[in-house]
């Protein structure tokens, strides 16, 4: 059932083909969806001007797969100043339609107007699923909109599936700091809403020249007494990659012994395009800022590659990193619990090992030439 639609929508001129299918009446569900927008799978595109957050495109790809399974359209929702280029980009990642809600109050993100716009669109077009990235902004907007729409919202999903019988969205997410996985459903209300962690789904290869339907609107916003204004924005320095988005994290613990030694980790992280993090012990010792703390009371991270350098592996730390795809541990204590969760263990002095690792990366990059760097193929994810 999904094969033909998928092929059709992936090729150029998707809209035209969809209309043809409608005419032939081969897929009544799709016809209905196309006619009213009802039952679509939506992805809210998080963007700053014309720059979209990578997670948004990852989700468009996934929405497309889910939509194909249900025989409906996948659509992007762009709330802003009318960013046509984002609408088109959404087509190239697999969306069949883009809802472009624009207005003077929607130019920069603010929870209340954006919530009103999204809830308004959803009330009108009745999508069955709305997905957002589990970013600070995505979670902010999703929570408000789900409340406004009085519907269910599942945060931080790491897997989405369709129940083959009931056609419900099966939303799987870690809970209790990753010690438990739960599959959540929203059986009786629509839309079913979920936020999805960045990096869970691969970004699809963009298809040049793909097109789709643009549904532009100017939402009317209720006047309210609430307001949040941005006064200033300080962009994090480029080399200071956020832990949440980082594909590679090099984390240090008590074994680092002093603040200055984090420079060793920074070098390795820099070569791999990753971020530096720390265990609570290192943070408490004052060697690094608490913003870098991974663990139960710090951040929960899920990079593709996690280096634990001189970290013994207390449960509280494991709670924050055990969802990483590949864990490499370097510790001079062969009994350290971190080795129990490490894919690759190196028993040795981190002061000796780390520079050699950095050197090895440099060597391989040099061999690979100018565009050498860490490249992640899908197989890294299990």
């Amino acid at each position, binding site marked *: 059932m999904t094969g033909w639609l998928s092929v059709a929508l992936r090729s150029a001129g998707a809209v035209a083909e969809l209309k043809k299918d409608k005419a032939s009446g081969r897929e009544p569900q799709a016809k209905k969806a196309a006619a009213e927008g009802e039952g679509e799978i939506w992805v809210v595109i998080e963007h700053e001007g014309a720059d979209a957050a990578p997670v948004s495109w990852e989700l468009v790809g996934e929405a497309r797969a889910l939509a194909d399974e249900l025989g409906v359209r996948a659509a992007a929702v762009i709330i802003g100043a009318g960013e046509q280029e984002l609408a088109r980009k959404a087509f190239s990642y697999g969306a069949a339609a883009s809802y472009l809600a624009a207005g003077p109050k929607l130019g920069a993100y603010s929870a209340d107007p954006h919530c009103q716009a999204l809830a308004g669109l959803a009330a009108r077009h009745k999508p069955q699923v709305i997905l957002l990235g589990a970013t600070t902004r995505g979670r902010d907007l999703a929570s408000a909109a789900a409340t406004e729409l009085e519907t269910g919202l599942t945060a931080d999903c790491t897997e989405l599936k369709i129940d083959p019988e009931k056609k419900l969205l099966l939303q799987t997410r870690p809970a209790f700091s990753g010690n438990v996985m739960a599959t959540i459903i929203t059986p009786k209300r629509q839309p079913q809403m979920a936020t999805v962690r960045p990096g869970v789904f691969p970004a699809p290869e963009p298809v040049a020249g793909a097109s789709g339907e643009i549904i532009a609107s100017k939402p009317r916003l209720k006047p309210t007494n609430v307001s949040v204004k941005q006064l200033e924005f300080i962009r994090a320095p480029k080399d200071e990659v956020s832990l949440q988005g980082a594909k590679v994290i090099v984390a240090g613990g*008590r074994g680092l012994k002093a603040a200055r030694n984090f420079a060793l980790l920074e070098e390795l992280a820099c070569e791999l395009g990753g971020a530096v993090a720390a265990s*609570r*012990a290192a943070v*408490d010792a*004052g060697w690094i800022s608490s913003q870098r703390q991974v663990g139960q009371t710090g951040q929960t991270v899920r990079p593709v590659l996690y280096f634990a350098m001189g970290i*013994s*592996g*207390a*449960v509280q730390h494991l709670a924050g990193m055990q969802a990483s795809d590949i864990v490499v541990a370097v510790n001079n*204590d*062969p*009994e*350290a*619990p971190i080795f129990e969760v490490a894919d690759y263990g190196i028993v040795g002095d981190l002061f000796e090992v780390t520079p050699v690792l950095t050197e090895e990366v440099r060597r391989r990059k040099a061999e690979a030439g100018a565009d050498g760097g860490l490249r992640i193929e899908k197989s890294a994810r299990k």
Partner: protein
Amino acid sequence: MSSKRDLATNIEPAGGRIKQAPAEGVLPNPAELGFPQPAPAVANKLALVKFNLDSRSHLSIKDAEVCRRRCHQKYCTHSCPAQVYHWEGEEKKISISYEGCLECGTCRSGGCPYDNIEMRYPRGGYGVQYRFG
């Protein structure tokens, strides 16, 4: 010095003979008992324990010179059941991982025969928090 192992092998299976008695009052050296040496890390055990970490240490060495010059065995590195104390060979000093302290008091009660460790309790609410106890 006669070791415990001698005794164990001296008592042979049924029908065997005990060849000689150990010298009176001499304790066996545990290193000769086949105990793993050096001691296995307690990190695995401590990983099971909940701690509310304070940002400051409640343990300190009174006089680093004593560790350096007088204490050859570095007793605290063995007597502490949480392996809080480590001898840093290069820096020639004891480092203190107070975060994993079980607050038993060994280090102030003879665990350091030189009485060279200042042990206090962590501030109220901090430190070890047993779930079973």
